[in-house]
């Protein structure tokens, strides 16, 4: 059931109605039922996977909590007779127990993710080797169902168990409440990847009907639908034409496809998240923001702090930091500083940990070399910009342009272009073709063709281009207004007729310009596939 389907709108309407009709103490139970129903509509088999992850993580969370309770009770009981060393060694022993429980949970659940998502990728690579060395019959691919949103809910559940292990959250006693945290349907298929500590309180709370919050949520959903149906799904037509025919559309067209895809992905993903957060807001649930005007970033590092923020912080907190500060890495840091000098030596472990994180980020997005290349491409660019930092500093000391509007504009455009170049790996069927298409932008020599009417051969009409231009202007305008706070809050302060015109106008735009209708199959959100 896509967010853009009529069925989903009907599902939401019934849910919203029931949610505020039933006693507030049952609201979370209704949400759990709705979440499982939503997942069941996608494919009943998926439920098996999410149940296994839910029950195993909940159970191990409870075990970790139980070990900790035993520890507290024992230490309280033997407070007098234990000296500092005895206490320390007892704590170490108990910590080891919780560590083993954590490892079991991580291996089991990340193992499921790895098997369902990457088995065929491994087989295809093994087959490539078999083919290359002529070693006999290739292996057969296996038919495994990849549950919708498995990367998202697994990461959310694993974040929870790590937080329980670290003691930053208390394990949830109630299995059904925990099941709701893992399966909360608005964010199940494309995030944000919420932290238990951030989401649980409002998820399980009672929410009396508040028209102002409900209307803010509906407005956010409408804006999300505008981005998805009016911009992203229209742009998709052009993107598909350009990237699926690389022999025809190379050079200038590859550049155009790259820009089209940047806009499509932004509208698609941020639109999907707007719908998610909007639905949650209607239900009174506070979901963490996932974007902070990413296309206004002045560097790639900044961009990754503003794009898909919940995924970025997940990788930072649960992979980058633990690897970077583990004892072997600290030893490596010491050794590399001794061998290579202070400046270079201290960067070695950071770059090594970053490599692991970007490799993981790439493969998390999809089981293909394209995504791995994309992840590592990001790593290379970030490392280069880090190494060039002293050069930038010298440049800024000499030319005082840092605060100027045009320099900031240059930085923003540079970042958007760099990110868009890297995203070409998402577009083309394999890595060599991506490099060929990238190279063709400089050697294609067909830039004049963009002006001879060929843009109208890409499946987009002049009206489509006008609508896309209007959408782009609106996106930029909204992002600029957002610099000083929520746009919806600002609109709320307008007189009634102003609010009516704006929201009714946006509704009409979605209705009249949206790429949907009877017989039209609105496209799946790009991030649903991850």
């Amino acid at each position: 059931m896509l967010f853009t389907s009529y069925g989903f709108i009907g599902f939401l309407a019934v849910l919203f109605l029931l949610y505020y009709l039933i006693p507030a103490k049952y609201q979370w139970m209704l949400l759990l039922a709705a979440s499982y129903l939503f997942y069941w509509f996608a494919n009943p088999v998926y439920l098996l996977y999410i149940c296994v992850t839910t029950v195993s993580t909940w159970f191990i969370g409870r075990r970790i909590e139980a070990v900790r309770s035993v520890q507290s009770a024992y230490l309280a009981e033997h407070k007098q007779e234990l000296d500092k060393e005895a206490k320390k060694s007892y704590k170490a022993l108990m910590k080891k127990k919780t560590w083993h429980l954590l490892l079991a949970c991580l291996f089991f659940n990340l193992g499921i993710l790895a098997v369902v998502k990457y088995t065929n990728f491994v087989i295809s690579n093994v087959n490539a080797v078999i083919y290359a060395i002529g070693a006999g019959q290739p292996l057969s691919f296996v038919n495994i169902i990849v549950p919708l949103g498995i990367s998202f809910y697994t990461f959310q559940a694993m974040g929870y168990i790590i937080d329980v292990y670290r003691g930053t959250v208390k394990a949830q006693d109630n299995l059904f409440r925990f099941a709701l945290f893992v399966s909360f349907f608005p964010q199940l298929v494309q995030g944000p990847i919420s932290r238990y500590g951030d989401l649980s309180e409002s998820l399980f709370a009672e929410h009396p009907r508040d028209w102002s919050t409900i209307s803010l949520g509906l407005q956010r959903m409408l804006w999300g639908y505008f981005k998805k149906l009016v911009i992203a799904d229209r742009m998709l037509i052009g993107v598909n034409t350009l990237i699926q025919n690389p022999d025809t559309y190379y050079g200038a067209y590859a550049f155009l496809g790259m820009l089209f895809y940047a806009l499509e992905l932004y509208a698609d993903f941020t639109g999907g998240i707007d719908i998610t957060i909007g639905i949650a807001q209607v239900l009174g649930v506070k979901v963490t923001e996932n974007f902070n005007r990413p296309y206004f970033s002045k560097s790639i590092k900044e961009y990754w702090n503003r794009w898909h923020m919940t995924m970025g912080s997940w990788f930072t907190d649960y992979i980058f930091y633990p690897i970077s500060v583990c004892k072997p890495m600290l030893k490596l840091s010491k050794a590399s500083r001794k061998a290579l000098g202070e400046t270079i030596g201290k960067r070695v472990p950071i770059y090594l940990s970053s490599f692991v994180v970007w490799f993981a980020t790439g493969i998390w997005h999809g089981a293909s070399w394209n995504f791995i290349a994309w992840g590592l491409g990001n790593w290379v660019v970030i490392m280069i910009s880090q190494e060039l930092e002293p050069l930038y500093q010298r440049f800024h000391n000499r030319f005082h342009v840092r605060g100027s509007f045009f320099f900031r504009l240059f930085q923003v455009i540079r970042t958007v272009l760099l990110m868009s170049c890297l995203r070409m790996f998402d577009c083309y069927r394999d890595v060599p073709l991506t490099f060929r298409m990238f190279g063709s932008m400089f050697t294609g020599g067909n830039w004049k063709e963009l002006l001879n009417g060929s843009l109208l051969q890409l499946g987009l009409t002049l009206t489509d281009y006008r609508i896309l231009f209007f959408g782009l202007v609106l996106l930029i305008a909204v992002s600029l207004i957002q610099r000083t706070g929520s746009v919806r809050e600002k609109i709320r302060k307008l007189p009634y007729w102003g609010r009516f015109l704006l929201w009714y106008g946006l509704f009409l735009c979605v209705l009249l310009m949206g790429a949907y209708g009877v017989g039209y199959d609105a496209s799946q959100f790009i991030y649903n596939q991850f």
Partner: protein
Amino acid sequence: METLLEILSDLHPDVDFETEDRLIDDKILDSFDIISIISEVADQFDVTISAEYIVPENFNSAEALYDLIQKLEDED
């Protein structure tokens, strides 16, 4: 505290670490800085700051970080 302030100032000479108390919230320190600090602290104080302690409350100010180091030293 002097040693810690020295470590921090080497990293960002332009920041007044004695008064600044929003080092993480205002994104003055990024993840690479934090790892550099932890590595230096491990050398200078012989204290290992594990990942679970990397939260804004512990890194927002030099004082908070110093308190954390002292707490970990006591635990050792």
